[in-house]
């Protein structure tokens, strides 16, 4: 493994990352002008986007890096399921209680381990 980037190398990497991120946003604006919301391609793209976001979330839960990786997988999944249970127990306006459930359970695990 190489040594960490330092000094200017780091800032050049940031410039590249910033341009790459903005590029994706700008391409979206360009394409958005030409897309009709009623079209088939729109339905397809919405499905692709939801799948991408789902993949990102499952990665954050199942394969996290850093501190969260020190929590056993089954505990992470259990807390997710309990929070989802709170969320769907009464569909309207349960987001904050469900979020608190999950966060406090994770905090509690951190305290007792």
């Amino acid at each position, binding site marked *: 493994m190489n040594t960490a980037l330092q000094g200017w190398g780091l800032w050049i*990497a940031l410039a590249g990352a910033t341009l*790459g991120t903005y590029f994706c946003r*700008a391409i*979206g604006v360009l394409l958005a002008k030409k*897309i009709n919301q009623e079209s088939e391609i*729109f339905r397809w793209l919405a499905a692709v986007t939801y799948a991408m976001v*789902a993949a990102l979330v499952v990665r954050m839960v199942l394969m996290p890096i850093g501190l969260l990786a020190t929590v056993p997988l089954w505990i992470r999944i259990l807390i997710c399921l309990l929070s989802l249970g709170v969320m769907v127990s009464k569909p309207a306006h349960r987001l904050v209680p469900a979020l608190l459930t999950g966060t406090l359970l994770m905090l509690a695990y951190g305290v007792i381990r």
Partner: protein
Amino acid sequence: MSLADKPYIDPSEIALEGSGVQRFKDSSHAFWSGIRDAAGAPAMVLFAGMVGFGAMGKTNGMDVWFTSATSFLMFALPGQVVLLEMAITGSSVLAIALAVTLTSTRFITMTVTLFPQFHEKDRNHGLYASVHLLAMTAWAISMREFQTIEAKHRLSYFIGLGLLCWLISVPGTILGYYLAGMVPPAITLGLVFINPLFFLLTFTEVKVWINRIAIGLGFVLGPFFFILDRDTSLLTTGLVAGTAAYLFDRKVLRKKAGVIG
């Protein structure tokens, strides 16, 4: 998530029909409502995510300027984490730029599904500036709320929502940077968990079956593609799972009366 519910109904048409019941009286009202809507769970989630990222920068030996500049300039947490990870392990600048760009491809489809809902007069070059405010949080909320907002006020609402999220990301990062090592790990653990949990929970608000199937397949296929190749995994999962959901919807669901109305 409005559009997802009725993707074949033009939201601007709904707004025209319902002009008798306006949600906002003018664009400044819409803008401040956007700010107000952001200032609850969304801002809390994003702030916690940025605090977690700031802590990560500190514990990996970056300086506070670099760590907070990534939040200001990129404003895309997964991309920021990839940048930090790769910079620490000494990847080349080109490899970093490519990997981050691949993680950010979700912005293309997010923009394409959200921005056509703005009013025609708002769909100009100014959107190239507004698009920087687009992140997963603002996207998820806008997709839900735009259904009940008139087309002409959507941009103001979106800017209010996105602006607050963007502006708090920098103080969040700085706070996390200086907090790291000061608070007990249990608290940090709770903070870093808010992000994935928030998005997981918002999925329960998706009502239309094509998108529900896409999410389910994304959950199943995501880890598989991640093991194959982590940098392209979001893109490949999105394309494969999204296309499968779309085809299933087109070939099976649409033929059953009542499922999609």
